[in-house]
């Protein structure tokens, strides 16, 4: 029979192991996520260059090439962190604060920062000129996925993989 002390020690080890496994699985999931940039299905744009993607999400441009207004849509959580870091080299907080500065200047319309990918998808689908980013697994036909620098999200060399 194991003493109570040994059982407690064993239990602690199991919790630590489970915790490590959880952290590992979450971080693997996050790093394995592919982020896609989505626009309203009516938008004629099909591709954004890396440079245009930066300009757009740093809120330094307010119009699409056809003159329609850009409506940025943000997202909370790890997908936003990954997108901000890979697309802009910033944290999601810095990206959102940058947007706030541009709203305060009157350069862009006030973006929505939403809680999940489904909400972002719905918002972009309903907003002509809307643009956002979500996990690739959440995409459906209600929105259009843009290629980045001519590369598809499931192909080699895609920026947000």
């Amino acid at each position: 029979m194991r003493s109570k002390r040994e059982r407690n020690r064993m239990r602690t080890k199991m919790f630590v192991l489970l915790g490590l496994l959880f952290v590992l699985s979450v971080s693997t999931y996050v790093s394995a996520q592919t982020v896609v940039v989505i626009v309203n299905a009516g938008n004629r744009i099909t591709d954004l260059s890396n440079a245009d993607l930066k300009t757009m999400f740093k809120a330094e441009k307010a119009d699409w090439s056809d003159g329609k207004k850009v409506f940025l849509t943000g997202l909370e959580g790890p997908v936003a962190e990954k997108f901000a870091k890979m697309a802009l080299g910033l944290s999601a907080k810095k990206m959102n604060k940058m947007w706030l500065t541009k709203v305060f200047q009157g350069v862009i319309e006030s973006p929505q920062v939403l809680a999940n990918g489904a909400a972002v998808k719905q918002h972009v689908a309903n907003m002509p000129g809307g643009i956002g980013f979500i996990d690739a697994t959440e995409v459906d036909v209600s929105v259009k996925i843009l290629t980045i620098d001519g590369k598809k999200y499931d192909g080699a060399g895609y920026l947000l993989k």
Partner: protein
Amino acid sequence: MLSEKSVFAGFFLLSLCISQFSSPAHAATKAIRGFADFNFSLTDADDGRSQFRLGQYDTYITGSLTDKITYLSEVVFEYDEGWILDLERLWVRYKFNDALSVSTGKFHTALGFWNRNYHHGALLHTSVDRPIYLFFEDEGGILPIHTTGLLISGIDIGSSRIYYDVMVGNGLGSSPTEDNDSAKSISVYVHSKVIEDVDFGVSFYSDSVSEGAVIDAHAHGGDEALPLGEDVDQLIMSANVSVNKGNVELLTEFAQVTNKGQRTGTKGTTTGLYALGAYSFDDLTPFFKFDLLDPDDADPIFSPGKTTAFSVGVKYDLSYLAAVKVQYTNLDVEGADKENLLRTQLAIGF
């Protein structure tokens, strides 16, 4: 100086655009947002004391009326022997495209980076306070940081990534509802982002301020607001460089204000400068700021004492809508004892 006919023509053109070329099919949008900050400070000044202080409570409404017409209104609640409501900005804009917009109303004057970017939003800037030379007009600032008039602007033009603002307004001494003379102020701010994550720009401002225009007590270092004794030609030039790349923030700006009395020929040049550097470790951002305000004794408008300030501090971002800052400042105002200040601030946005 710009003729009144030219200004009238510009204003008429804007009205025509708004009435003729707007698309009624667009759904109007509206967002109500704002900033507030809460402060506590300690000082070693002889007449100083520790104190809690409410900062500026700023609310602004922004949105669109049509696909081409946008608007912004901003009010600040301030305490000045009683709560007052100050209309900081109110403008309506017709946008042809990113390269050309025409707006009318009350604006942040097209003078440099800080004035156009941060203004009342303490959450948006890293330091607790504004640079000294960019204090508000009623706090002793040397720049006319608000202008009522007409603005032509454009963003992200060409491969040089040029941004510009050209502004014609009532100028110093006027109120938002009335000009005190027929001379109009002109300001131009041109900046470029041709180098990624770097913004550099230059500004120019010219005005003729009329005799009798009332100058705030802080500006001339006295106790009471004083009327100007003669017409004064005012010329302001400024330049800025900002780097915002990854974890690094570097920002420096310089302004030179030259005032010359038309009758006496008395001329004075006042200089303002600040430099801010910061590096972010995730949510924690240590920073420093250096301030200089160097007035000319001969200046017919400004005569506060020469001021230098060196600050170090740290900002912690709780979210993108809330930050806590702690800042130590060593303040040296000519003619007064040096002062050490410790300030904390909770800045929020909503």
